[in-house]
Structures are given as C-alpha cells and as structure tokens.
C-alpha cells in the first residue's frame, strides 16, 4: 500500500495543492478531525484541480446517491434534454472547482506583507536593545564641539579646495557658499 502523509506530499507540492488533491472532500460527508496527518493513498487514482491538466484520473464525487445516479443515466441520452441546472450538477459531480474558481485570487499576500512587517518590527526592537546595551559609548571625536573644531581645521588646511570640501567655503565672507 502506498501511503504518503500530507506533510511529505507538501514537500513536493504546495500545501494548497495537497488540500485539493486529498480525497476527503468527496469521500467524507462528516468531517473527522481526529487524524493528525491525512494520508493520501498514492496507489489509487487521484483527483486534482490543475489549469494545465484539465481531466483528472477520477471524478470528484465517486460515491453517487440515487439522484446522482439517475442524472448520470439521463446523461446517456441527448444532452439537449438536460436543463442548465442539471448540466451544472453533472459538472460539479465530476469536478470540484471551475477554472475561474481555481484562478481565484487568495488573500495570502496580506499574510506575507504582514509577516514581513512583524519581522521588521522585531528586528527593530532587537536593534534598539543592542544600541542601548551592547554598543560601547561613542568616541569623543563625535561630539559637537570636537566636530566644529575638526571642520575649522579642515578649512584651515584647505581640504579639497578645487571641487570638494573647501571649495564650498567662502573664505572671504567666512561662510558656506
């Protein structure tokens, strides 16, 4: 017996596809949530909703009740005799999602962006803590007074007088250009 736990199939395909692939939806009318992991029996024909593979190995609803069976019987006759509702019912017996339903947009992007911001926030908190507790005190050369004296010294030395630092200083009027 080939059994594949949901987790392992999840490695091969995305979890969303796995949920679509499990035969629980068609087979079970009552939901049994006692199982921790749902086993997909890979030795049986599988159902899938895929844009690139329109016809899966088995129909969505395998177990047909009497109304379904009589509808399937009517399907053997001319399809012009079927009403729209019957045609839709026949489609829903064989398939789970229509193409537009397969292609419906999900709200996953909100989870992703939200998760990103949460991570940024936590990182920000970590950085704040580290600024306070980890970093040593700033060197004295960063202080206002020292910086002012440093700028004056650089101007006195005429650092980059043509296109750089001192070029921006108006020596005549003793101000920045």
């Amino acid at each position: 017996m080939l059994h594949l736990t949901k987790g392992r199939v999840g490695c091969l395909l995305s979890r969303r596809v796995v949920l679509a692939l499990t035969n629980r939806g068609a087979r079970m009318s009552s939901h049994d949530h006692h199982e921790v992991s749902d086993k997909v029996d890979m030795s049986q024909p599988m159902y899938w909703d895929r844009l690139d593979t329109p016809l899966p190995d088995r129909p969505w609803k395998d177990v047909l009740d009497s109304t379904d069976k009589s509808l399937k019987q009517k399907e053997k006759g001319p399809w012009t005799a079927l009403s729209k509702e019957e045609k839709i019912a026949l489609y829903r017996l064989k398939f789970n999602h229509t193409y537009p339903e397969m292609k419906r947009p999900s709200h996953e992007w909100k989870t992703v962006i939200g998760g990103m911001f949460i991570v940024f926030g936590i990182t920000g908190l970590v950085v704040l803590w580290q600024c306070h507790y980890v970093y040593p005190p700033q060197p004295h050369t960063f202080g206002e007074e020292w910086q002012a004296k440093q700028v004056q010294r650089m101007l006195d030395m005429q650092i980059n007088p043509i296109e750089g630092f001192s070029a921006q200083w108006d020596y005549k009027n003793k101000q920045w250009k």
Partner: protein
Amino acid sequence: FSPVGKMFRAVVRLSTSGVRNLARTRPCYSAPLSARCYSHAKVETDEEFDARWVTYFSKPDIDAWELKKGMNTLIGYDLVPEPKILDSALRACRRLNDLASAIRILEAVKDKSGPHKDIYPYLIQELQPTLTELGISTPEDLGMDIL
C-alpha cells in the same frame, strides 16, 4: 620543474590540437541555401499535427482514459488546439456520455488562450454548430465563467 606541470602543459597542447581537428571534420555545408547546421529530422507540419489529433479523438471506441490522456497532453502543448481537434474531442465526450468533460475542455482552451482574448470567441463561433447539435452549453451559458 614538477612532472605534474609538464603533464598539464601536454594535456593543454593535445586538447587545442584536438579542437582544431574537430573543427575540420564537422559536416558544415557551405552551400548558400543551407548555411546553418540544422538537424535533418522531418518536421511535422501544422496540418499533419491537426490531422493526427483529429484521428486520435475520432476513434469510435475511444475510452475514458484515452480521452483524458489525449486532452491532458494536448493542453500541455504550447498552442491552442484548432476547432477541428476540439470538435473531435467533444464528439468523443459525447460517445463517452461525459458532458462535464466537454465543458471542462472548453474552459481549458479558454485558459490556454491566455492574454489573447479573441481566440476563445473564435473557437466558440467555429464550434457553435457542434455545440448546438450535441447540446453542450458553454461555461458562459451556465454562468460558470465568473466566480
């Protein structure tokens, strides 16, 4: 000098001469018509491709597996099938008493058209006689083209 170095130099010399030999013996035609070295395999024309697929789906005793395999393979190709192929496939669905798959096929080719929104209406226009004859409703008729 180390013998390894000498060996390496010898290998390099051999390989460069080998490359030259290869260039000399490659069968490149210098004729003006076939200036490129394309493969000489026969390329199937579009008509041959279409005919092959129409024949595939026209099999009178086609079974459900063959229909599934055919359709899944066809949708896997980088093309939108011609109306005649789809006509043949829809008739195969009729022989198999499978309306749901017929509607699914129509949905699939609409999706295959991708951004080219004019292909699907053309296909439906070409298939309309078959659709009315067999009684296949399009997904639009059934309201299944919207969520």
